[in-house]
């Protein structure tokens, strides 16, 4: 697919804002619409860690049948990419916790809190960690 003229410059300019926009899209809670958007973005750039995180997070939040394995797949791929958003590890920990994988959940939460010790939900996640490690 030919790269549109000016795309690189456009991506450079929006880069500081893009993840915030992606988070706002997730927060709308209109999961099916968000999945269409994130599928399109991933079709153009399949290893984009921000969008992999976003799609995994939408699957996690929706929680329909088969959504948890999809969330785990996207979030694991995002976590393995270069410079994934810190929130990837939060979501990964929450999925692993839901799946009953205590050690994997604790590792993900530890990584998240190491990357963002003052995360807004640090208090809640530390309580989850305490339960997972007890």
């Amino acid at each position, binding site marked *: 697919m030919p790269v549109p003229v000016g795309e690189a410059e456009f991506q450079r300019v929006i880069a500081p804002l893009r993840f915030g926009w992606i988070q*706002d899209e997730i*927060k*709308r*809670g*209109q*999961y*099916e619409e968000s999945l269409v958007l994130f599928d399109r973005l991933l079709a153009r750039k399949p290893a984009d860690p921000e969008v992999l995180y976003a799609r995994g997070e939408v699957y996690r*939040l929706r*929680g329909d049948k088969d959504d948890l394995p999809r969330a785990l797949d996207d979030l694991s791929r995002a976590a393995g990419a270069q410079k994934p958003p810190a929130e990837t590890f939060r979501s990964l920990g*929450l999925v692993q*916790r*839901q799946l009953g994988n205590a050690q994997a959940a604790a590792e993900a939460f530890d990584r998240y809190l190491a990357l963002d010790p003052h995360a*807004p*939900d640090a*208090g*809640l996640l530390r*309580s989850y960690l305490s339960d997972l490690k007890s």
Partner: protein
Amino acid sequence: MKRLFALLLAALLAACTTIAKVEGDQVVNDKLVVKVPAAWNKVTDPWEHEPYDLWTQEGIPLDHLRLWAGVQSGQPLVAKPTVLFRAPGEKDPRYPTFVSGLPPDKLVSLFEALYANEGEVKITRVDPTIFAGEKGVRFELTLARRADDLVLNGVGWAAEHNHELYAATFAAPRLTFFSKLLPMAEAVVKTAHIKG
């Protein structure tokens, strides 16, 4: 004709939003008891049967305290609007819906989605807490409201009891009102207990 118009207008106004003073012991949805040390104003709209009680000090455009009691699994946190016309293939939007057994982080996400409908919302703090005598979650948020560009601070509490949701949220403009009114909201919320 003028007299008829005046009568119709009076009847219409009487059927619109009502505001009643609440103080002392109050019961929300016949399930959640709170003590109200300083009076609040309860806002009721006969046209919209929201699944929460709506209270305010300075008026709804400024501050609100919402109280949910006994929301059952599968019920949304807000009333779904009546749709009079739908384009072919158009689906209803999703509404934040309580499901029994949700972990605290997902309870917070429900309220985040609720406020995201009004503007740009950001959760700024989440901690475990006790609400209405149950283990639950307390969260704080900021909301940049789309309708008037006002930035509000908010706080919420949520817990599950017998597969039902009990929750409260309070929000007010960041400047002046939030710090002034939050203690009044907290004074109500800390007395909350489930009836029976």
